């Protein structure tokens, strides 16, 4: 199978998956007892206003008709309007997604670098105190709840050490004096691109704690996966041969062994990216980080079903695409992997 045929097949499957996700989400949000029309007109609305909103939103139509309309609009790129913000859901998502992506990508980059380096080191130093300490570290990262870690980080870096801001995306004074010109929607990146240094350092400082909180889990998973893959790889004959031929240890570890051990690690990175899209919900709420998670949380709490569906479909799409990218990357790294 050629790579293009493989990609086309995977994309076709992805469409099916998204169709299934959209259908299940649609049914789930409608099964849950709630009154979307009441959400739309806001608190304290009169019964006649709610009835009018129900007609305006088409909620008085049979469920299968509503479903048909929703799916038709979805395909056309109309994801409906949020019941709360009254803006198109897709616009809302595009507004909040870059902020979350900045957090998630930096967290994953840090998690990958630290996780891989620690994983290689613990495999290399198996059974030593370094191995033990780092394994405790990784177990902690995987098992500590995000909200607890967030509070601990806030106490440590803000309350005790007075080193980092406790929450938010920027300092109000700095943001007002040095407004960031939006290019990508990611404040740190935009500040960097535009050479806005006061805003850059301020945004970067605000990014550190939520990023560390979000990085903890993937870092632990990546480290453990790297360690086990490396141990397996280092037991192979070609590594022994290479070592016997005098290949330097660093080359052996990071070039020969790691390259072969990286396939499973890459899969884990892809999965944790999708995990982070939802894992960021708690983190964003605690750190008042105005991203997709914050949007999703407030939407869920107010039963804003178009927004809930929009976020779900977006996360599912990201999950599917990242998995596809990971599979392609694995094929690139290891040509023996058949694209079938």
């Amino acid at each position, binding site marked *: 199978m050629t790579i293009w045929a493989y990609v086309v097949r995977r994309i076709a499957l992805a469409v099916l998956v998204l169709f299934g996700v959209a259908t299940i989400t649609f049914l789930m949000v409608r099964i*849950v*007892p*709630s*009154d979307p029309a009441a959400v739309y*007109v*806001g*608190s*304290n*609305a*009169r*019964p006649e*206003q*709610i009835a*009018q909103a129900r007609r305006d939103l088409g909620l008085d139509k049979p469920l299968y008709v509503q479903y048909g309309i929703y799916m038709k609009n979805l395909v056309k790129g109309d994801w409906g309007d949020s019941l*709360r*913000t*009254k803006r198109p859901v897709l616009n809302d998502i595009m507004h*909040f997604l870059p902020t979350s992506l900045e957090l998630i990508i930096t967290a994953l980059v840090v998690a990958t*670098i630290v996780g891989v*380096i620690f994983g*290689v*080191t613990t495999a*290399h*130093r198996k*059974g030593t105190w*370094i191995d033990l300490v780092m394994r405790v570290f990784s177990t902690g990262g995987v098992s500590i709840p995000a909200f607890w870690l967030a509070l601990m980080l*806030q106490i440590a870096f803000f*309350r005790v050490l*007075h*080193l*980092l*801001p*406790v*929450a*938010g995306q920027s*300092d*109000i*004074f*700095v*943001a*007002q004096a*040095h407004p960031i010109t939006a290019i990508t929607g990611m404040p740190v990146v935009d500040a960097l691109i535009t050479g806005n240094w*006061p805003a850059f*350092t*301020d945004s970067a400082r605000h990014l550190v704690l939520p990023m560390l909180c979000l990085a903890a889990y993937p870092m632990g998973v990546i480290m453990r996966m790297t360690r086990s893959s490396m*141990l397996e790889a*280092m037991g192979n004959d070609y590594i022994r041969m290479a*070592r016997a031929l005098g290949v330097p*240890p*660093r080359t*052996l*570890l990071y070039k020969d062994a790691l390259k072969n051990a990286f396939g499973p690690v890459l899969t884990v990175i892809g999965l944790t990216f999708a995990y982070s899209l939802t894992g960021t919900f708690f983190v964003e*709420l*605690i*750190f*008042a980080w*105005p991203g997709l998670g914050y949007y999703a*949380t*407030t939407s869920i709490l*107010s039963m804003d079903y178009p927004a809930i569906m929009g976020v779900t479909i977006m996360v599912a799409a990201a999950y599917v695409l990242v998995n596809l990218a990971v599979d392609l990357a694995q094929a690139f790294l290891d040509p023996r992997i058949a694209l079938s």
Partner: protein
Amino acid sequence: MERWSSRPGRVAITAVLVVTVALLAVVLTAGCGSSNTSGTAPKADILRLAYTSTVTTWDPSASYSTEVVYMANLYEPLLYANPPGSTEPFSPALATSWEVAKDGLSWTFHLRQGVTFHDGTPFNADAVKYSIDRTKKLNLGAAYLWAPVKEVQVVDPYTVKMLLTYPVALDRIAAASSGSWMFSPATAVKSSKWWDAGHEDGTGPWTLQSYKPNQELVFVRNPKWWGTWSDNQYQKIVVEIVAEAGTQQQELEASQIDYAGLVARDQVDALAANPNIDVVKGQSWNSYLMFFNTQHKPLDNVKVRQALSYAVPYQDIITVAANGLGTQSKGPVPVGLWPNTQGTVTQYTTDLTKAKQLLSDAGYPNGGFTLNLTYAAENTLENSFAPVIKESFAKIGVKVNIQKLLWNQQWAKAKGPIAQRQDLFVLLWWPSLPDGYDNLNSMFRPETSPAWNLAYWYNTDFDKLLTEAYGLSAVPSGLEQSQQKYNEAQAMLVDQAPAAYLFDAQFVVAKLKTIALGTEAINPNYPQVLFWTKVTR
């Protein structure tokens, strides 16, 4: 496993350490615990607020929700309702004087001259007519308040006359916290999409500079405002949307914000102990009730409802949930709000002996029945006191199953099929206008389909009393008689007990000591609102 050279391990650890230290050095030295504001705008000009309030609509005709905290600073009504204890009940806003006809069927408002909307359009009688007519026509939000107004007549450029279909206290409606805003007729060509993209066009002291939904709102002074500015008022208001009370508290303690609009009741003492912070508490029109479903047995029996009213642990609820920041309700209208009974109606006290006796009289000598209680999961106070009620009811043999639901689910269940509705519905209520009539009318009047009368209790005598009392309150000469009728109606509500009136809650906010709140910065007639012009350095 054979031991390899240790060099790669050392290199790896060193690399991580170097990168980490370098990053930390760059980031931390930029701030070191305080805001690095070198070269920034004067700090003193910016007031930083943390709110939980998001915007559900920017349309002043439709607005009826949490955005009131912004609307009240962007727009102005014809009158302002003064806080309790004021000499006069109302202050002039866009109307400088007003009078009501003897029959209460027409009200004349004389308008302030020299006022312009934010777009430069002059404010005049046409603008008043346009604003009220549009709000009525859209029939969204609090438009129902204007239902008694048959016609708005333009008498001259600065005088309007409102003709009513039945007498009402229109001054209270003109001063309401929703639906009363005057906006520019130039917006007639704008759609709801235009408004909701983050536009406004009022006469208020502040204008909206930028709006990032769920994130940040920036307001600047309206240079053409008819009021006067002083040097110690702020130039700019920046609002951060912060949903968590704990985060707001930490930001306040770090001086990252000047004002926290949400304070967890159990953190009040800790905040008050901070030498840099003031905790501000005061009267609000927020009150908690628990409706008894009078359509379900045995709550259709008035003696059972009375027994449960005696079994409510009022003081424990206030202590546990509100940290003492509340008082037991004296009926469904909070103390201080017209037409509270001012102590003339006897309220229930916690008395389990009486409760047991009443249950016995009703044919339930040892209780022996189970009730389903619902409350809104978003409300931390309700979360605290629901178990207290359960525990107290258990002492008289009544078992309570608590269902914690999201507010919309709780409300949807209450409006669903009769058999599936709750037995006990806990509700936080505040009126939409400075008139407790809204409490009585909304929560205890018959409804064609349930909305707020969640006891499903209907009584023709009560209806008659309420109608009479409301009509009498339209003119000053009828107030005394109106109060008597209202007292009778509220006595009926206590006696018939369609709900247990739990407590009137105080508002609690916290601020840095570097800012000062004027006497009218917080006014219970405008729930959750901080009037920014009353905040000074």
